[in-house]
Structure formats: C-alpha cells, structure tokens
C-alpha cells in the first residue's frame, strides 16, 4: 500500500486492479454487474457463440425496467418486440444462472433504484451496468459507471473490464440549500455551469457541507446526473448517512460482518493532502430552483430566469446550436419560462423516482388538483417504492388530484414502453435527459425537480414552487 495521499476514487481504483501491462489499460475487477433487457441480449449471444459461461453469477443481478409496461401487468403486452426482449432476458438469466428481478417480482424496478434498495450497492465496490446512469451508485462511495454491450460481455465472461484511469474532479458544494431548492437543482446548476462535456474523462467527487447534509436519495439524484456533465462516474464518500441507509437491507452485511464492513468503509474518504485534477465550488445557498429550456441538460436556468439570446454568443457553432434548440422547443429568446403552458408532467425515473421524491410531490399536490390541460404521470422507480408509497397513502393523493399512478419502470424517461409525450407537446419531467425526441418523437422536455413538476401540474404552466409552500 502506498502512503501517498489518495482520493476516494484512487483508493477504489488501485484496490481493484488485477493487472496492468505497459501501454495497456488496467484489467479492473468488477464487484457488481447490473443487467437489464436492452443492452444485454447481444452480449449473451456473444457468450454463447464463444461457449463461455458467466464467471460470477453471484456478482450479477438482472431486472426489467426500460421496455416494461407501467400499466397493470395483467394486461397482455401489445408491443411484441418489447415482449420478446423481456422474454429473452428471462431466458438468458435462466441459462446463465443469474438472479432476475423479473416481471412479477415485487422487488423489480429501475436498475439504479433497486441496487441500493436491496443493499447490493455498497461503499468501495466497483459497479457497472450497460447503462450510463450507473453513476447513481457512486452516492454510496462506490466507483460505478456505464459500459457498452461489448463490455457487458467482457464482464459477464471475466468479471473484469479494460479501463484507462480517468482523472478526478472535485465538486465542492458549500452552504445549505434554501427552501424549495433540492438536489436536482444542484446538479442542473452544476451542468449548466460546466456544460455537458465539462466532466469528460473525469470522475466527479462531490464534497462539502451541502452534500453532507443530503440524504442518500438526494445524493443519488446528484450522482445520477454526473454523466450529463460528461463524467462517467460521480462519488460521495460514505458517512453515517450512508451506513444508516444500508443497515438492515436484504443484502447488507449482518452481525460481525457489518462491524467489519463499517470499519473498512470508514477508510473510504479522500486523504487531506490528496490532489484532484480539477476542482469547482458551488455555493448551494445561492441556488434557486432550476429548469432546462433547451435540448441538452446543460441548457438550464433559474426558474425565474429568461431564455438566452443566441445573438449574444460570439461562437457561431454555439449560436446555431442554441437557435436549433429554440426552434425545436418553439421558444423565443428573452422569454421567461414561468407561466409557459405545459401538456404533460412526468414524475419518476432513476433520477427522481424514489420514495422521498414522491413524498415531496405529494405534499404539493395534497388538497389540490392537477390542472385541466395537464396529463400527469407518476411512476415509482421500483415496486418497493410503489408499495411504500401506497402504504403511506401517496397513491391516493396522486389519483385524487387527477394524476395517473403506475407500476414501476423507466416509462416516459425513455419512452420505449408506450408511455410517451406526443409530438409537439411540452413536458415538465423529473428525469435526466431533454434530448430531442427523448420522451417521444417531437416531444419537448423541461427537466426539473419533483417540487417544480408538482407545482407545474397544479397550475398548468411552469411554476415556482416557492410560491406554493
């Protein structure tokens, strides 16, 4: 062991290198591999073609989330292609002996929601999934990142991945959040500042008073969108908040193993003298609720702000891109977003589909009605979240207000399962991507927090939740 001061990232990285030859990437050991239906079928085909097995089925966990319907599962699936893909995952898991939280599992859900819920996500682990939002799991002080399908095959077969060491990027969040401002606003503000390529080649480590004050679910919201700032991973050093979250979960260590685990997890913080390749500080107390106006997550502004004018950009590429975005969104430079009418409100996704998100939204909706012009969809991130919400009566709050209450899944975040925004419609969504067509062909997305989404649902137009709480 080296006595050099190390960052949290470096500690995990170094302890997972199986070998590294000169001029070659490291062979990095992977502790947990999460699998879903969309990015895995071709990887399993690859294994079959080579006659390989899954090296460590116990380090592998599968679920169905992307293309699964959120209508009651008693209704037969109309989309035969999606049904075939789900069926294929079930067959692959059966053949290769992988634990699957399938269609009828009460613990099924979005892969990045169930990993933590089950206690499978733990500090110090390396975690991968054929999904870019794997960065979510970094909230536990794990090194977690998305991979492509070829790499899914590599990990299935070898439990290892070829990786070059990324650089480190400290995101220091000072101060405390104001009322009506949430974790989602922090990450949208960060991305608006650094741009969607700002973290390319880096791993974020979120530090500072504001991060320490956040719950695990809030930290997950922030780490989740690290990829939207270009970083493959985002991490938070584990602390008592982390340990409290993990205590007693199904796959968390128990008894003496738990004590041992805590002891080693407590070492997972950046040493005082360690150096990051880059650093940025954001003052959380100065943040306001954020909302995006364009077609990538960095095109965001304070909810009270006005849309920028392309003519103010000297770089012609930047100008054209903003112009194209505003054309797609049918928005005008200088226009405020407050009061802009909306057609759909979506609450859910691996960013904001956890129980605390639903509680916040329900608080705004309680005793109020969803405006006539709005279709509001509330989709729990997992069946466990759904069950918990129902036990608290949140489903009642939503349905009485006029929202649709669904089964768990990715749903309108990616619009693969039939839940989609229609062409030309505007949606305020708690998900993570506002790319053209992401929520349905021609759909126009404003990304925001659950609080902002709920306030918008009530008023029928983009609203500042601080006027309502």
């Amino acid at each position, binding site marked *: 062991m080296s006595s050099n001061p190390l960052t949290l990232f470096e500690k995990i990285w170094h302890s997972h290198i*199986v*070998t590294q030859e000169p*001029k*070659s*990437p490291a*062979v990095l*050991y992977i502790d947990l591999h999460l699998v879903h239906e*969309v*990015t895995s*079928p*071709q990887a399993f*085909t690859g294994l079959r073609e080579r006659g390989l097995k899954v*090296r460590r089925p116990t380090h592998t966990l599968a679920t169905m989330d*992307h*293309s699964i319907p959120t209508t009651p599962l008693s209704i037969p699936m109309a*989309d035969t*292609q*999606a049904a*075939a*893909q789900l069926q*294929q995952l079930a067959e692959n898991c059966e053949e290769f002996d992988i634990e699957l939280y399938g269609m009828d599992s009460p613990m099924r859900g979005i892969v990045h929601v169930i990993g933590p819920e089950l206690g499978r996500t733990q500090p110090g682990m390396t975690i991968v999934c*054929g*999904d*870019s939002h794997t960065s979510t799991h970094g909230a536990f002080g794990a090194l977690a990142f*998305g*991979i*492509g*399908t*070829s*790499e899914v095959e*590599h990990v299935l*077969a*070898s*439990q*290892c*991945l*070829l990786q*070059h060491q*990324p650089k480190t990027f400290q995101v220091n969040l000072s101060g405390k959040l104001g009322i009506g401002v949430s974790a989602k606003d922090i990450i949208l503000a960060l991305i608006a500042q650094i741009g*969607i*390529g700002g973290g*390319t*080649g880096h791993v974020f480590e979120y530090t500072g008073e504001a991060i320490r004050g956040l719950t695990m679910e809030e930290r997950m919201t922030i780490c989740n969108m690290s990829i939207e700032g*270009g970083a*493959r991973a985002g991490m938070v050093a584990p602390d008592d908040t982390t340990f409290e979250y993990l205590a007693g979960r199904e796959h968390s260590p128990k008894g003496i193993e738990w004590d041992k685990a805590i002891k080693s997890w407590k070492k997972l913080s950046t040493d005082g003298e360690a150096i990051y390749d880059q650093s940025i500080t954001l003052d959380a107390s100065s943040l306001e609720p954020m909302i995006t106006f364009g077609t*990538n997550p960095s095109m965001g502004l304070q909810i009270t702000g006005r849309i920028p004018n392309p003519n103010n950009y000297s770089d012609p*590429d930047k100008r*054209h*891109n903003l112009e*194209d975005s505003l054309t797609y969104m049918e928005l005008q430079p200088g226009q405020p977003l407050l009061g802009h009418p909306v057609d759909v409100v979506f609450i859910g996704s691996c960013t904001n589909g956890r129980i605390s998100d639903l509680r916040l939204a329900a608080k705004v909706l309680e005793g109020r009605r969803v405006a006539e012009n709005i279709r509001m969809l509330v989709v729990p991130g997992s069946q466990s979240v759904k069950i918990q919400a129902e036990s608290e009566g949140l489903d009642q709050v939503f349905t009485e207000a006029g929202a649709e209450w669904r089964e768990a899944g990715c749903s309108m975040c*990616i*619009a*693969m399962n039939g839940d989609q925004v229609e*062409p030309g419609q505007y949606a305020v969504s708690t998900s993570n*991507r506002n*790319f*053209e*067509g*992401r929520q349905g*062909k021609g759909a126009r997305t404003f990304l925001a927090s659950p609080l902002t989404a709920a306030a918008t649902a009530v008023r029928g137009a983009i609203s500042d939740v601080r006027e309502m709480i």
Partner: protein
Amino acid sequence: MAKFTHLKSKVIVIPNRNIDTDQIIPARFLKVTDKNGLGEALFSDWRYNSDGSVKPDFVLNQQQNQDAKIILAGDNFGCGSSREHAPWALTAWGINAVISTSFADIFRNNALKNALLPIVVNKDIHQSLFELVAQSPDSELSINLASQTLTIPRSTAVTFPIDSFAKNCLLTGVDQLGYILSHESLIEAYESTC
C-alpha cells in the same frame, strides 16, 4: 475483432454540437435482441418525416453521400446514453470514422470496439475541414491508423491521438475479451484475496 487500417472517403457533414446517442439511434429502435436493421434507423428522426417519408434535405439521404464513410461532426459527439447500438447503427450504414473536436467517453470506447474510428482534431483543423467540404464537397480525406494521420487535400497531413492499446487491437484484430481471459490466473488470484 473487426480491423481498421486505413480509409479514404468523402465526408458527410453534420455540424451540430453535442450529437447525443438518442439522435444517432432513438430509443424505440433498441428493442432488438440482435444487431439487425440498425443501419436503417440511424439518425431516424432527422432522416424521416413522421409519416415515414424520407427528408430529402438531410445529408444521409443525399445521393452524393451514399458511399461516404466519414462523418465530420460538431464538438462532443456521442454524449448521453451508453447504447452500443449507436456505433452499430453508424457502421451498419457504412460509416467507419467520425471526426470531431471531442467525443463522450462511453461512445469513444464503444466505437473503438466496433472498428469505428473516433478522430479528434483541434479547433482550427476542425474549422478548416468544414470550410474544405463546403467549398469542394467531393474532397476525399485519407486516414492511416498506423501512422495516426489524417491527410487533407491541399493541406498537410495532421496526426490524431489514439490510445495505443486500442490502436494495436484495431490494426491486428486483437480480441479484447481474449486478452482479458489470457489473465485468467491473475483474476483467480485476485478473487482469492477478496
């Protein structure tokens, strides 16, 4: 693994910055369990009208571009979703190299595993390439991986960076999974210490 040594081709220009993988291949085409048909879905929402008819103005639909193998794109190509369907769709359509000033990390990794070369050039070269193709759309660029050079007509050749391991894999067709598995005994040793 598929090899890449050199390439000479005309260039398709898609100047947008931050072209994300949802544009390269929209999510509704990800329900496949194989790699078939992805070339037809490449840039689907930019290529086809909502009634399915072809948008004649979009570069991929123009007759003179049908045999082009290089895309010249704006900054930060391939951001967003990790879907390897994006390089699969690009190569299925016939693209073997993308030139930009930067690439998103996961896309770059995925591309290199599919013999799709992500070529990074600096801002000035990038700009001069846009100008070159605007002036003479039939200009052909030559890419040589071994020497890491991009040869531009009426200009000097420029070198581009590429990770040496990935380069070697592409030149010799080394299979990366085979490479990992050749360390089997070390993997076992690692596992026994955990």
